């Protein structure tokens, strides 16, 4: 076991990938000389040289497009887009191209590309730098979407990402980089489409992903302590493919479902989950499915306002109390 931060565990995955296959290379803005905007790639340029660790101009479309073309031609690119906000400038390449090439070519072209990016708010970066689009991306057939919430998951999921023959969006939450966890030294992988039951309980199922998983865990502790009610917390780990089975099994057991995410409530990925729950487990539900998400506002800068929009453990506890009369 090694006690690693999420930053370190992802870096471990990158080094492994680079060492195991010369077709693997990293490309992105400021990943080399600058060591990465979030320091994930620190030292890699020195270790692997400029052929494998490639600083690019600030040109998100052509960065991603180059990754797509290189993948189509047989390489294994790992592309870093500095944050998911900037990925908007490359949506054409991601959605119109990466996600479609296999289908439009009837399987002739494969795009085995891992797109690493940084998601989430909470660092007072204001409206343009605090967004979470992984849920949107999970709506696109042809993409796979990974959003780890712990260092161990990040490494296991990264290893699985590198085995995919399809484009993978690997969304790392900015506030999790410093989070530590014991990570096994022996090799392990975490499959896609396999949610993690972080905490088992028999009364309420809380479903979440990425940065919000920690918040849900904290809320569950409060609920356990204050009300003697046990929540089951499910970390989806990948949004596409989605482990619907685990969700349904849990909801059938608890009869109550809460879906928590950091993005805006309107159009949030949680809406898909709650739609499916009511369809598959309607007769088991003891109350409405609760969705907790950010307010439908651009993320504000001011700390108090920012805390007002992102779901907090207090908000989760309050919503559960109100709706499930515990």
């Amino acid at each position, binding site marked *: 076991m090694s006690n690693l931060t999420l930053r370190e565990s992802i870096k471990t995955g990158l080094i492994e990938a680079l060492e195991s296959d010369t077709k693997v*290379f990293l490309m992105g803005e400021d990943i080399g000389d600058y060591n990465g905007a979030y320091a994930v790639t620190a030292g890699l340029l020195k270790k692997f040289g400029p*052929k494998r660790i490639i600083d*690019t*101009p600030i*040109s998100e*479309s*052509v960065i*991603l*497009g*180059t*990754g*797509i*073309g*290189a*993948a*189509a*031609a*047989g*390489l294994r*690119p790992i592309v870093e887009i500095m944050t998911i906000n900037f990925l908007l400038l490359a949506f*054409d*390449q991601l959605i*119109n*191209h990466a996600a479609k*090439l*296999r*289908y*439009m*070519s*009837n*399987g*002739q*072209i*494969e795009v085995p590309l891992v797109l690493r990016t940084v998601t989430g708010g909470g660092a007072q970066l204001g409206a343009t730098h605090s967004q979470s689009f992984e849920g949107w991306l999970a709506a696109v*057939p*042809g993409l*796979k979407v990974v959003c780890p919430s712990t260092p161990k998951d990040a490494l296991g999921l990264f290893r699985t990402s590198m085995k*995919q*023959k*399809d484009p993978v969006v690997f969304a790392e939450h900015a506030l999790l980089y410093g989070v530590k966890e014991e990570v096994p030294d022996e090799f392990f992988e975490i499959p896609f489409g396999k949610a993690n039951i972080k905490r088992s309980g028999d009364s309420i199922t809380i479903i979440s992903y990425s940065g919000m998983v920690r918040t849900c865990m904290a809320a569950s502790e409060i609920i356990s302590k204050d009300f003697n009610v046990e929540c089951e917390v499910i970390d989806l780990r990948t949004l596409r493919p989605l482990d619907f089975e685990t969700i349904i099994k849990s909801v059938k057991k608890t009869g109550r479902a809460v879906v928590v995410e950091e993005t805006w409530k309107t159009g949030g990925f949680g809406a898909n989950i709650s739609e499916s729950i009511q369809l598959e487990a309607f007769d088991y539900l003891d109350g409405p499915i609760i969705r907790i998400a950010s307010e439908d506002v651009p993320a504000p800068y001011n700390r108090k306002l920012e805390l007002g929009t992102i779901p907090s453990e207090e908000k989760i506890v309050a919503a559960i109390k109100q709706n499930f009369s515990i």
Partner: protein
Amino acid sequence: MDQSKTIKLYQDMLLLRRFEEETGRLYMEGDIRGFCHLYIGEEAIAVGSISCLSEKDYIITHYRDHGHALARGINPKNIMSELMGKSDGTSAGKGGSMHIFDVSKRFMGGHAIVGGQLPIACGLGFASKYQEENSIVLCFLGDGAVNEGEFHESMNLASLWKLPILFCLENNLYGMGTHVNKTRSSGKDIYKIADSYKIPSMQIDGMDVLEVQKATQQSIEKIRSGEGPVFLEAMCYRFRGHSMADPSSYRKSQEVVEWQKNDPIIKLEKFLSNQKIIDQQKILKIKESVDSEIFDCIEFAKNSPDPKIESLLENVYQNE
């Protein structure tokens, strides 16, 4: 130059022309649907430039792609089947006219988002360089694509990283119905843009297949020697509308007539007979054989079954 190779250029251009004429007819008859962009008038560019490629070279292009696909030697039967959405199509009916792919021929698509193929071209060139393959990428684009951000990002990167790409701009003076004079701040001589990216560039007569071929050969030599990309602006004109849905209200029919006097196929035909490389009889024979090839391919495509409904969900992801 080898005379048989020149005759082949003629034959190929004729194939493209007749294929597209029949495609237009089949569209009117309802056998082909969707957006469908004919290449009639621009044949010299695809045929001249693609004739210079080797098997390991890549082609990537826009939605006006039938001509490029045919010139690459993709079986017209499979292209026609794709236009009709049939199971024998290049993508078994999943791509359509704008999305022709044949990876066995390193034909990397048909891309229908204006400018979208350019970043991918950079990736193909990058891979060639990374793996020291020495294959080049022939990337076609239209004058309209030049105004997209993706174009400028790609030009910068291709030049900065010395990627082995030949950008072949088909300047047919219009993006849909809007003339380049209305869309370009620096006027219609687009090749000059390449200067600012330190990419060598040239404007050529895109209605002259021999000129296109010569310019392409020179460019490819440069690119293969590792000097980075080259930019060719081939001046041309499409004789038909932008797509089969074009109202053609934006240009005068006299303008079309003037350009038709410059028909690349007639031009080469004249050259061939003036040089006594072929006679009328041989020309007739070529026309007949092209016609029969086209009719065979239409017959083939019409008889090709629709894809099975089960195929709908296939190839979204790798088989799991």
